[in-house]
């Protein structure tokens, strides 16, 4: 049976480390580009949210390797740290990969994090070949059965981690479905059944409202506000009629208004986090991020400094086996549809009529294309320079069909490199040579391996041009053989004697 709702004080503050008695304050999601604000302006960033899996890599044996050196470095930055999981969401009937737990705890310990959180989403599907990554955080099965399954998953994290655990409300681009719990009631059911804290992502709730789901005022009425320990604020963008949780810039003014109304009621609030994707930091600039942090400090002053005890809750719980199968059917169907698999069931037919499904497909394709371009930067720029946009789109489409998404960028890069190497791509200079260079850099960074890459053209001229978005004209291969030595210690350019 699904565990009945109880309020166990020990589970909240007990055998594990408790929530800090002094609130942590205002902060942001760590990104290297934000270090000037973190290091250079005392008091501006009081807490860092770290997404630990971005510092992991997948090894060949199905496990994960933590980049302890980089996480140790984060522990030395000023301010408190909290961990925000991005790879093993708990809104699922399928338990997160148990292999993630050891590196997750290691990340908590290395950074000295005060608590850890994860998303109320799922990100894996299953077909005849086994489970696969869906390439995106997808909305959970939002029924009572789904809430019960998610609570069981969250409760495992509560039990396993050395620090308090929180779940975050997600975004859904799908339309509300008959028989579902409201967004707020789903969050309440999971948090109370798992007896855990809540990361209230106000932008997600607001975006859901804008996209036709539960009005945010109703959402805030439904959730157990006393469980909210952390608040997320972010900006988004409008794309083809949907407001996207894009973390793409400043918080919208309407959302600041809502935040100012709700914060005095979040009496156990301990941290406020501004989220922005690294890609957008370059676009909006650090001054904009600084201004958002200053607004967060203003918002922080609106808190009520009277902690509120957690309320007990009691509902009968349905059978666990039934809840898991219901959730897994939802997840298998939705993950299959967004990754281009076929599905023949009533649920699939209903989802195919939901325009939100197309949103997920477009976002996954954009993310995968960006992952490939970001991890194979010279190859990517050469492809863009060499192929017409529709030809490049077709090439990507063929890759999406051939290979399931990989959440780890290194894996996605190696899969795409393998895919490319099996094809003849017309390019004014050798794509194979540029691809070998990109892969050698990845090997140096991830495997500590050195390699010599040969070029039939001057690599300084061509790679230097691509760095600058410039493709120099190469009339013909040079009689010289050029080489580039790539090693963990550096890259050296030269010509053969």
């Amino acid at each position: 049976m699904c565990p009945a709702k109880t309020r166990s004080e020990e589970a909240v503050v007990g055998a594990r480390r408790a929530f800090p008695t002094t609130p942590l304050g205002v902060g942001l999601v760590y990104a290297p580009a934000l270090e000037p604000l973190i290091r250079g302006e005392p008091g501006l960033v009081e807490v860092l949210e770290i997404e630990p899996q971005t510092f992991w890599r997948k090894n060949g044996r199905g496990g994960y390797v933590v980049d302890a050196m980089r996480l140790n470095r984060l522990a030395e930055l000023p301010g408190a740290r909290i961990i925000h999981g991005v790879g093993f969401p708990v809104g699922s009937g399928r338990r997160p990969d148990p292999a993630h737990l050891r590196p997750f705890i290691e990340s908590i310990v290395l950074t000295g994090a005060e608590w850890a959180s994860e998303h109320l989403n799922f990100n894996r599907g299953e077909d005849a070949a086994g489970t696969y990554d869906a390439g995106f955080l997808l909305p959970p099965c939002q029924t009572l059965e789904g809430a019960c399954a998610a609570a069981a998953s969250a409760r495992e994290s509560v039990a396993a981690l050395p620090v308090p655990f929180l779940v975050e409300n997600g975004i859904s681009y799908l339309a509300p479905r008959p028989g579902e719990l409201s967004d707020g009631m789903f969050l309440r059911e999971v948090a109370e059944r798992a007896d855990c804290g809540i990361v209230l992502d106000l932008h997600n709730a607001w975006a859901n409202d804008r996209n036709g789901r539960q009005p945010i005022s109703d959402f805030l009425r439904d959730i157990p506000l006393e469980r909210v320990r952390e608040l997320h604020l972010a900006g988004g963008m409008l794309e083809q009629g949907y407001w996207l949780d894009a973390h793409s810039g400043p918080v919208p003014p309407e959302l600041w208004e809502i935040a100012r109304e709700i914060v005095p009621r979040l009496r156990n609030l301990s941290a406020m986090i501004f989220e922005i994707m690294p890609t957008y930091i370059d676009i909006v600039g650090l001054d904009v991020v600084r201004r958002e942090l200053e607004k967060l400090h203003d918002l922080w002053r609106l808190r009520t400094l009277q902690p509120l005890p957690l309320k007990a809750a009691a509902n009968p719980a349905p059978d666990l086996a039934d809840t898991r199968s219901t959730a897994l059917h939802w997840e298998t169907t939705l993950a299959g549809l967004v990754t281009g698999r076929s599905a023949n069931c009533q649920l699939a037919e209903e989802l195919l009529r939901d325009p939100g499904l197309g949103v997920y497909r477009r976002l996954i394709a954009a993310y995968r294309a960006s992952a490939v371009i970001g991890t194979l930067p010279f190859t990517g720029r050469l492809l863009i320079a060499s192929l017409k946009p529709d030809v490049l789109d077709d090439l990507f489409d063929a890759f999406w069909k051939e290979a399931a998404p990989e959440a780890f960028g290194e894996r996605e890069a190696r899969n795409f490199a393998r895919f490319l190497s099996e094809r003849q791509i017309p390019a004014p200079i050798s794509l194979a040579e540029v691809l070998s260079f990109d892969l050698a850099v990845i090997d140096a960074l991830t495997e500590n391996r050195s390699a010599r890459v040969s070029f039939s053209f001057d690599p300084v001229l061509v790679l230097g041009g691509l760095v600058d978005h410039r493709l120099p004209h190469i009339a013909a291969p040079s009689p010289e053989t050029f080489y580039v030595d790539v090693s963990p210690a550096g890259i050296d350019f030269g010509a053969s004697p």
Partner: protein
Amino acid sequence: MGGSGHTITVTIPRSVGFDLKKIQKIQADLVARLGHAGCYSGFDILFRQEQEFVVNPQSLEFHVPG
């Protein structure tokens, strides 16, 4: 990242060719992307940004439209 735990250093023996800061930026972005994807449920704009640079077929040089 992984075994090395740091960005590789670029040493260039020639005076022509590279804008060092730009290649360091590319490498820093690469390091950040080799691990698991970060928290996102929106639109990753990197590919669209790169596509904004269009090649001039005469000179084979990229240029930014507009």
